[in-house]
């Protein structure tokens, strides 16, 4: 029977005529773990997993009609399972209830990885002839692990700096938080941050760190900028700016939205005195009054007073504070002559890190990011009127893994095909 040695997949290594298991490790064939590994080497399992992966990618693509890219990535690909709504398969004009469970990207990826590793463990025989294949498959393992590392440990945020000023935190725009700030200390602000996932659950939020209890009356995942209410519009707010402005719900930004402006959530929150439950007012908090206004050098906190202490409350992008401060000295925005078409952006920044005793001045431009302390700073945008810069700060411990993987796969293929070519040329010369 013909053998197929040239193969990027372990499944093609398996042939009915190759009793690798029996011959390689006869002493272990009755062990349960070994049985499981043997089962994992199944060609049919590989094919099934690939088909499941194709279906998952297809469904994840369809789901972006209704949901944002990062929501889909999290639900479909960086999960062990997903409930896929039937609605995604039919036009939205026809309402179809119900959903079905499906393995998520990490479950499928983990099974593929196990399938690949099991094939090598069960049938491991190191020979020079097979070393190219081994290297190639090791490259695939690195590639799969790189997605796991990225999904688990990578973080990216936006560092916004107005020209002439500094910043020491990044904002994670796909995560929101309700921040309650106590500004009474002359030296520091005390911040308590409630993650969006908790806000979406609704109900009453009670916590030792909070100066009051919070009852979520309503949470809008996306909203228009608060506006004056029209006639006959009910307004739950009894205090703050929400008394004169109401939040208007808006469908979440989807992966197919051409504007990709991001969601601006809003919430109606009733604040209550701890213990007694005495009402401190129902407030509207909107990320338009924090994330959006910040781009214009302003903000609009809602002031909640309890026991003679006033707290500023914001619904905003989650902040991550850094041990360094970045000052924007100059932002340059070039256009192609005679047009408004962007040509290039660059930011001349000064980075001061008091912990690492680092101080340097760097120019960050579109294709020349700054790499510092495991983070990469990309020039990603600018503030309206070129008032300042927006840098994307990415920390990904696995950023090198795809490069290493590609090199390993390429090296493995070159070595393997090189051996075959060599054998072929020798035979030909002999003939």
């Amino acid at each position: 029977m013909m053998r197929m040695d040239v193969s990027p997949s372990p499944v093609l290594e398996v042939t009915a005529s190759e009793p690798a298991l029996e011959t390689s490790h006869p002493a272990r064939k009755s062990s349960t773990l070994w049985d499981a590994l043997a089962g994992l080497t199944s060609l049919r399992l590989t094919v099934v997993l690939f088909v499941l992966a194709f279906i998952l990618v297809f469904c994840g693509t369809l789901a972006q009609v209704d949901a944002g890219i990062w929501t889909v990535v999290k639900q479909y690909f960086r999960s062990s399972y997903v409930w896929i709504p039937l609605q995604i398969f039919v036009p939205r004009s026809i309402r179809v209830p119900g959903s079905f469970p499906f393995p998520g990207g990490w479950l499928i990826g983990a099974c593929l990885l196990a399938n690949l590793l099991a094939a090598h463990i069960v049938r491991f025989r190191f020979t020079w002839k097979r070393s190219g294949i081994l290297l190639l498959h090791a490259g695939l393992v690195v590639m799969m692990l790189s997605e796991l590392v990225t999904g688990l440990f990578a973080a990216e945020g936006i560092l916004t700096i107005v020209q002439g000023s500094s910043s020491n935190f990044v904002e994670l725009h796909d995560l929101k938080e309700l921040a309650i700030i106590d500004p009474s200390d002359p030296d520091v602000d005390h911040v308590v941050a409630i993650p969006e996932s908790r806000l979406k659950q609704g109900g009453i939020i009670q916590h030792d760190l909070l100066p009051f209890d919070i009852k979520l009356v309503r949470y809008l995942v996306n909203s228009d900028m608060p506006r004056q209410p029209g006639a006959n519009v009910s307004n739950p707010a009894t205090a703050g700016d929400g008394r004169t402005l109401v939040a208007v719900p808006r469908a979440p930004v989807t992966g197919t939205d051409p504007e990709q402006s991001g969601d601006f959530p809003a919430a109606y929150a009733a604040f209550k005195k701890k213990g007694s439950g005495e009402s401190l007012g129902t407030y509207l908090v909107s990320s338009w009054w924090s994330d959006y206004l910040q781009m214009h050098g302003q903000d609009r906190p809602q002031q909640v007073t309890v026991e003679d202490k006033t707290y500023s409350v914001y619904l905003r992008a989650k902040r991550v504070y850094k041990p360094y401060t970045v000052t924007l000295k100059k932002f340059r925005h070039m256009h192609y002559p005679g047009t408004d078409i962007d040509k290039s952006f660059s930011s001349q920044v000064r980075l001061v890190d008091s912990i690492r005793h680092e101080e340097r001045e760097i120019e960050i431009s579109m294709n020349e990011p700054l790499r510092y302390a495991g983070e990469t700073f990309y020039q990603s945008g600018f503030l309206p009127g070129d008032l300042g810069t927006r840098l994307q700060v990415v920390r990904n411990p696995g950023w090198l893994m795809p490069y290493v993987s590609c090199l390993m796969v390429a090296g493995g293929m070159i070595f393997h095909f090189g051996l075959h070519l060599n054998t072929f040329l020798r035979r030909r010369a002999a003939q």
Partner: protein
Amino acid sequence: MIRKPRFAVALFVLSPVVLLGGCQKDDIESYTVPKSHPSNLGLPTERTKLRMLAALIPQGQHTWFFKLQAPEGNVAAHQQEFDQLLQSIRFADRADGPITWTTPPGWRREAGNQMRYATLRPEVTEHPVELTVTDLPGDAANVLANVNRWRGQLSLPPVTEADLPTVTKVVTIDGCTATVVDFTGYGKVGSTMAPFAGHPPVAPSQPNPSGLVRPSIQYTKPENWLPLPEDASGIRFVGFQITEGDRSVQITITPLSAQSGSLVANVNRWRGQIGLPEVSEMQLQRDLQETAVAGKRCPYVDLIGAESAMPNRLRLIAVVARYGEWIWYFKMMGDPELVEQQQSSFKTFLRSVRFAEGES
């Protein structure tokens, strides 16, 4: 031979890895942020303590604005020079020099532009400041509106007519009654706010006064938008109308030169058209949205008329798109419900817009 697969055992072995996907750190957290850091807003030096000295002088058919705004310490160093300059002002009935003053020693006068009559600044100083002189024709001397606009620029609350005597000083300058203010608040350093927010735009009397070649424009409009009759003044480029029963909405496209007034001036003109009070630049920025026109993010305002205007309340959506030396104003105004219905069509229309060089 390979034994029958035992997937369950294998998946059990793998489960810790797979379940990592479900682990999220979603706790309520607490931390402290030093106040000296750029933390509260992310824009630390944005909110610098500023002082503003300003004078509003109505004279004949003109209103003159003298304004000096800078960080508090810088203004204090030059306050005396500002007061002396005000007292040196003389008006003349001459078109080429309607006003004169004595520039303080060591200061230089820079040429003005379409928006500004002159700019004065000290040449060598440790406390740099900029004094602007602006001239507005006609009746722009609404003291309360201007005082509140200035207060808004320094994040100060507005005042009422009754409060004016307590926050302003009235002085006589060359026979004219002038209003002088001295405010301290928080604002942006180097702000380029228009000196006359609230004033109608300086729209050209001709659509193309500078001889600039207006770019051509292409767009795709919905079928139910019917063209309006041609604009006799020639200012409006094109207009459409949608009518449903007794409700109607008009869409207009007007290109003007890039000098056609600040955004706040135009927004206040539109607010006036639907019975809303004027807003300051800061208030405007708070309400400003953005949308895409020809692939670029452009300012977008969505205004609904005052409730007192019921039942003839109007809603107005306008987008300002700058292309080269031209500013294109896209406006939809009419019955609020019909505007709401047409909003997505309007945005689709805006996305379809394409500009190109060449007379349209």
